[in-house]
């Protein structure tokens, strides 16, 4: 961390301390500011006053002066006297200081939201954004209000908030997806587009699973920085623990590190993490292994063998599943077998996870029991269908009896009517 950054912040902070008491007291709206600003007829001045009414800070009892300073009780332009602490629209660097004045003060924040962290400014200073703003004076980078907005700040749990999980990608993408804005920075601008194609976004937007990762889950929020190439695995491993564990023990972990290859993302991409499927493994057309391996080398052979294991279990599972379903549709009782077959599905899921150890043995350990369970379930399906055959035999017997009775009746009728 640059000492200069801290220094300039301290300078700003000092100025602020002189200007108005710290931290601001919550004061009761309505304020004098709003009365005039709503009447003024200039959108740039009206909108903030209007928007702020639904801001979380307004709800907690803060007014305009909490950030902008000045004296709301004074009439007209008097209120905006710099002597009364009025600062107008804070500059981009000043914003960090204005927000941090309260948000970095644990004792103060405890009164409003004891669960809220107070290290945002500290984190921000370590971030790519913070370092550029505070050290290089680059005002194009994001500061508090870029993501949280200036007058419509809402907690991330509020679906209308710009930092709600569903909105984060859009919020970050507003700058990072804009090639013109990002010109001059060594960062690609296709992340948003790629992320929108990923399984993570699909989980979040289609399935409504808000725990699926969006930008900040990997990059951090206030400490936003690109994950280092070498430690991307730690980030993914936060959720995908089994794979990460297997991978860490595998030979790939060492080799990738030596090659400077970014772990998980080598095969799965970074922003465009699409749903992983069996086709990624092996030597097929869609397999990622073929980027380095071929059928000639040992790795290629291992990949093909692991794929075959998984395919075998999947086929066996499908076979058992199909026959049980057929039996069920025919009205047979197979729920116990179907219940047990779940375990084979488990084994398949586990095998797909452990294949990240990249050894045939590890995969085999999961596959073997799965195959046994599938075979047993399949056998039960066969037996159920045999029972169905038995039913049909029973039917044949009863039909024969009915036909005999019909025959008897016909004879009886003929005998009766012969006279």
């Amino acid at each position, binding site marked *: 961390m640059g000492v200069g950054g801290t220094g300039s912040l301290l300078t700003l902070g000092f100025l602020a301390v002189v200007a108005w008491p710290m931290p601001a007291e919550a004061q009761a709206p309505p304020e004098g500011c709003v009365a005039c600003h709503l009447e003024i007829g200039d959108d740039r001045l009206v909108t903030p006053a209007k928007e702020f009414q639904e801001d979380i800070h307004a709800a907690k009892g803060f007014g305009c002066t909490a950030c902008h300073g000045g004296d709301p009780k004074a009439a007209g332009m008097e209120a905006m006297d710099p002597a009364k602490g009025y600062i107008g629209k804070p500059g981009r660097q000043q914003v960090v200081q204005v927000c941090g004045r309260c948000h970095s003060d644990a004792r103060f924040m405890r009164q409003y939201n004891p669960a809220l962290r107070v290290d945002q400014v500290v984190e921000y200073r370590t971030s790519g954004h913070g370092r550029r703003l505070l050290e290089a004076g680059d005002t194009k980078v994001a500061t508090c209000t870029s993501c949280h907005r200036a007058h419509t700040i809402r907690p991330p749990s509020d679906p209308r908030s710009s930092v709600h999980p569903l909105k984060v990608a859009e919020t970050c993408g507003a700058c990072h997806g804009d090639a013109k804005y990002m010109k001059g920075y060594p960062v690609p601008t296709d992340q948003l587009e790629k992320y929108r194609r990923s399984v993570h976004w699909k989980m979040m937007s289609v399935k409504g699973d808000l725990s699926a990762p969006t930008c900040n889950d990997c990059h951090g929020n206030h400490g936003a920085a690109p994950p280092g190439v070498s430690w991307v695995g730690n980030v993914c491993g936060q959720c995908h623990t089994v794979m990460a564990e297997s991978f860490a023990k595998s030979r790939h972990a060492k080799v990738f590190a030596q090659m400077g290859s970014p772990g998980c993302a080598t095969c799965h991409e970074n922003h465009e993490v699409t749903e992983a499927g069996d086709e990624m493994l092996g030597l097929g057309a869609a397999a990622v292994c073929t980027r380095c391996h071929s059928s000639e080398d040992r790795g290629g052979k291992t990949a093909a063998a692991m794929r075959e294991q998984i395919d075998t279990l999947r086929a066996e599972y499908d076979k058992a599943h199909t026959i049980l379903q057929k039996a069920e*549709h*025919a*009205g*047979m*009782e197979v*729920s116990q077998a179907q219940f047990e077959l779940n375990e084979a599905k488990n084994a398949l899921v586990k095998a797909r996870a452990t294949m990240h150890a990249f050894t045939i043995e590890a995969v085999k350990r999961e596959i073997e029991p799965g195959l046994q369970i599938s075979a047993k379930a399949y056998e039960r399906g066969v037996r159920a269908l045999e029972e169905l055959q038995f*039913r*049909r035999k*029973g*039917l044949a017997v*009863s*039909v024969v009896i*009915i*036909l005999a*009775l*019909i025959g008897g*009746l*016909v004879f*009886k*009728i003929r005998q*009766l*009517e012969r006279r």
Partner: protein
Amino acid sequence: MATPDRRQWGVWQWLDERIGLADLAKLARKKEVPVHRHSIWYYLGGMTLFLLMVQVTTGILLLLYYRPSAEEAYESVQFLMAEVQFGWLIRSIHSWAANLMIFTLFVHLFSVWLLKAYRPPRELTWLSGMGLLGLALGFGFTGYLLPWNELAYFATKVGTEITGAVPVVGSFLGRLLRGGDEVTGATLTRFYGIHVAILPALTVFLLGLHLFLVQRHGMSVPPNVEGHQAARRVMPFVPNFLLRDLVGWLSALAILAALAAYYPAELGQKADPFASAPVGIKPEWYFMFMFKTLKYLPASILGIEGEIVGVIGFGLGGLFLLLVPFLDRRTARGEPSHLFTMIGIMVIVYMIVLTYLGYTEVATQ
């Protein structure tokens, strides 16, 4: 016949003295069935009655395991199908016999129509028969929901929604039928009560009337047959006709058993009121022509909502069907009535065509 020596039996005599078996036997022996080229249609009423008896028997058996609540209905049927021995058979027969019964009922209705058996003095027989048709459709509609599976749930939802299109009392009727604003567990309990208590009670009454009237008037001979034959051929009901009836019933039973063994009633997924409707929900086949008609109607006819027009149309159609014996004056006077024959044929063709369309068209809507 061997009745004289049977009278010697102690039991027979004992019962005869108390309930007059001899009179009944005399009555049975007196009953005759006319024999002519249309005699085959006489079997359909009896066939429907037999299938009704099958329904009563299997229905009572199903009651032993069924539980009428949204939480348990599906599971109890699943249990019945899976755990109870021959549960699949009983349920499949109940489901298949219901379909066959409605089918024979329709054939019975149209044979009576085309042979003009409704002419005086049999108007009341026709009316009670129409009432029985309505009850049978009610049985079908309420019974369909009882397994509480996905398909039945949504079909019932659509079906009860249509009652909402009835003018003035529609929304009240819908609420009354559903036992609330939505199809819920309350609807299931209500349908169950209707299916196993209210409708059977009404059926006993109407069926008794119907059979009494048939007994009283005897079999109707079609007008075009009546005129031609100078010497009417007849056959005693007991035992000649009854034995033939038995042959038909046994054949029906064999067909039922085969259907049950080869196409057992499926259960599908449990109903989930919060899930979206599955593609291709269909009502029972005997409601299909109405369902399809409502689908074909434009959104608005002469400024009135198409569905309302359709529902009113079917109401008027039902009323017309009910009043056929009174509207058809020519038949009542003993003259040939080609108009009503034509109407009958047109109704049959209409129902067949729309039902066909309902099953062949791709389910996209």
